[in-house]
């Protein structure tokens, strides 16, 4: 072995696993708590309760986010896109991507990606026996790990359109980690007609009490700090994609179900959601 090689490995050993610290609140378990699940520990609930205290509408937002996800998946299947790459999928509870997608189209293929080892272990248990869905333990910030994982290669055909789900994920990625670059790297592998599904928290609209400072403060102490971005910055994540109607809008306004009354709760305006279609003719 060359010295250089050894040195590089000493710097960042590829085999060193991420440790698990169950005393640190996990954003995916907090999310589960907001949605009424019990896949969480006291430390997660404690953090979630503080977040709700700072921003009482959070569970509603999460529910609206989940509802958006469902509508977006239905939209994707309606567009003939039945392959899903869901990054930052978290703890699978109910109404998860593979449930919705496989209900809408039984042949849908779903690859979940998460970097939380507990979420990954749980997903693995939940998905056991489902040969059309799998979980990859990887980080959004290392797209190659996702694209070249065995699960991705087995389940997704990149010659055909894929729906890339970055739901409630990008607001946990700091600018220094270059989320735009990671999206571009993944998007590069996607066939024309592929969809990019994004929801992202923002302090642009909604209650202006503290611009989200309180909830940001809570998340600063979790495994992933929360980054609110203005609408324009969120729109830039769709570089290379064409936003479908109605564009980048607040969560409840994205293609609402026909029989629902317009969302009145201002807390639901605290984030943006949109779906983009990759340019070029659909494969």
């Amino acid at each position, binding site marked *: 072995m060359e010295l250089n090689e050894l040195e590089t490995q000493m710097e960042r050993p590829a085999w060193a696993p991420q440790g698990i610290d169950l005393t640190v609140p996990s954003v995916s378990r907090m999310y589960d708590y907001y949605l*009424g699940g019990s896949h969480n520990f006291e430390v997660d609930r404690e953090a979630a309760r503080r977040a709700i205290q700072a921003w009482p509408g959070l569970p509603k937002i999460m529910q609206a986010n989940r509802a958006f996800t469902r509508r977006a998946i239905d939209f994707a299947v309606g567009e003939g896109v039945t392959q899903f790459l869901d990054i930052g999928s978290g703890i699978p509870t109910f109404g998860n991507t593979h449930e919705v997608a496989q209900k809408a189209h039984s042949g849908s293929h779903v690859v979940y990606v998460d970097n939380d080892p507990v979420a990954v*272990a749980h997903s693995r248990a939940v998905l056991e026996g489902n040969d059309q869905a799998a979980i990859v333990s990887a980080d959004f910030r290392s797209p190659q790990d996702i694209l070249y994982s065995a699960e991705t290669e087995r389940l997704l055909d990149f010659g055909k359109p894929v729906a890339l789900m970055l739901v409630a994920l990008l607001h946990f990625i700091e600018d220094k980690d270059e989320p735009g670059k990671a999206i571009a790297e993944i998007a590069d592998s996607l066939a024309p007609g592929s969809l990019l599904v994004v929801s992202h928290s923002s302090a642009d609209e909604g209650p202006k009490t503290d611009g989200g400072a309180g909830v940001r403060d809570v998340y600063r102490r979790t495994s992933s700090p929360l980054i609110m971005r203005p609408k324009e910055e969120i729109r830039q994540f769709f570089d290379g994609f064409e936003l479908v109607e109605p564009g980048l809008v607040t969560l409840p306004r994205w293609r609402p179900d026909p029989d629902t009354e317009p969302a009145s709760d201002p807390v639901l305006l605290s984030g943006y959601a949109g779906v983009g279609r990759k340019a070029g003719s659909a494969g």
Partner: protein
Amino acid sequence: MTADPHESEGLENDGLRRFATIWSRAVYPATQTSMTRAELGDYLHPLAVKLCDALHAYPFSAAPGREVGAALVAGHCTSPDALPHILGVVDSYLVLYGRDPETSELPVDEARARCSRLQHAIAAGFTEALRDRTLAEQEALSRAALAAQSAVEEALHASETRFRAVFKDATIGISIADMDGRIRDANGAIAKMFKRSEEEMRRRNVNEWVHPDDAPDVWRMHRQLVRGERDHFRVEKPFHRPDGTVLWTNLTVSLLRDADGEPRYQLALLEDITERRLLHLRLRYEATHDELTGLPNRTLFAERLDRLLSASSDVKRFGLCYLDIDGFKAVNDSLGHAVGDQLLIAVAERLQSCTAGSGHLVARIGGDEFAALCTDPSGPEDVTELARQVLAALATPIRIDGRELSVRASIGIVEGPSGELRPEEVMRSADITMYRAKDAGGSRYELADPDSDARAIDRHSLTTRLPAALEWDEFFLEYQPLIRMSDGHVEGAEALVRWKHPVHGRLGPDRFIPLAEHTGLIVPLGRWVMEQAVRQACAWHEERGKGGGNGKKKNGKNGDALAERPLRVNVNLSPRQLHHPDLVPDTIAVLEAAGMPPSSLCLEVTESALIGADEDELKPLRQLAELGVEIALDDFGTGYSNLANLRRLPATTLKLDRSFTQGLQQHPADPVDVTFVEGIVTLAHALGLAVTVEGVETEHQAAQLRDMGCDTAQGWYYARPGPASTFVQGFAVT
């Protein structure tokens, strides 16, 4: 829930549909379901049916209420807040909408009581399901956490095992020391390199690893690393071994920090390069030393000179003796290379004896060239003294194979302050100066001087440029009229070559003809000159034939006479051209190409070029003369003029050197010169030769030379050399 199973049940269905709608509207806001409200309504409808059936069942049982409670939890109505909404709707509307119109004998009181019991059952079922679900989820989560943790532990263990394997089996030496330098762990490879056991290694401290040959900044970088100001460094470093030998390594030291970024360990990676280094040193020695004499060779000499001359060195002056053995080729040729080699070895030894202990570098530059390089001489006298010593050391004959060989050498000395001249400039200067010493007879030294260098460099640069100059038409001709003294008319012109040098501008023939003669380029250049000149003569002739020449008008009938015979061009012929085998065919070809008679060309040959020429060598000239080409003996009177020889030369004209005419410039003229010129004219005429005088500058001179019987004249008095276009054909002096 795409098809409604109760579609055909009429009113009952209609009532329960409405109930389900009210129910879903009340419950939906308190659920976390991902269903739409309409979907929730569809989900609740069968539960409503179940409740209704239970309400009217006989005998009554509240058990279905439990099932409904459990189904609600399964439908994700899991929030405790949902329960009041669930029960509130059942309480208010089940009896109303859940009435069976055909069998409505159930008394209202009984219905309400049953409804209450159903609510209790729903609450119980809901709670039980919620508790089961919570426990199940908690258990699933714990199992996941456990699985994740054991996966991490397994990976850590695998990683640790792998790392131990790398550490243990690596051929690279690895040691990990704390920040005080105490070695905490060392692998087998490093122990082997140091020829110690691993345990011994672990008792050492890296701060003991000082070696006298350490690079100057090793320990400074190490201190920076220990202070956390540097994360790694890499050096070539020697170490002492217990057996007294030296271990040479490529050493990389990296700082390992803890999670808070504080320096914790220093990791050293060592690669044993002892063997490689020895090999390198040996190869380096071989690459920098001369095999024959063992002296440093040109490579090492050049490196040293580079260092000495660089402005950054702390050396103030340098001195260089550049030595070349005189006549070494003759030794090789006559006595053989083996003797030549021994001679070189002996010379090398003597040179070394002169510089022993002085710190001067003696090198063999190549062949029979040597150099001595002095560091910081006090001045030129130091270096000349060395040169003297060298010459003295070589003066004693060298004995080889019982033969005494005396060695002579020429030395060029360059001495000066460092930081001004570049190495190649110094070497060039030394070379030029050495050749000056050789030209001055050899067995001596010369000190470099800028003027001589400049001249030599100039000569050199002109010489190397000559071939390109001919190719790129940088040469051009000027013409100086030759005046017939009897009537003052132009008889011809001497073609004079010039060089329009792109840098130095216009150069006269004295600057480059000797160089061209030396390199042989004179042959093509001479041919080019002849071609141009003859072509020009032809042009003049044609111009005159057209009758448009202003000379004709001016000169009346004489002009007519001139028109019959073309103007002659004189072209200089160098010794080298003279001996070139193609001279005759080339000349004929040039004349034929232009369609000019041979008599329109006069070749000027210096007297000295013909001295000692035998008949064979004169043959080409004679052939040309027989064809009708005029032959002029140029610069006559400057060489050793063998008057007897004059007779057998194929010359037709004598060109008296300008030195004779200079004496006639004075007034009164130098009587010796007068006598001399008169004598030559008489002699020439007696031999049937015409006389041309050069350098005529005054009217008085011209008159006097005419009186003395000179036939043609050339000089500033008549015209300076000029381009063909300004050449005045009908030039006349009265």
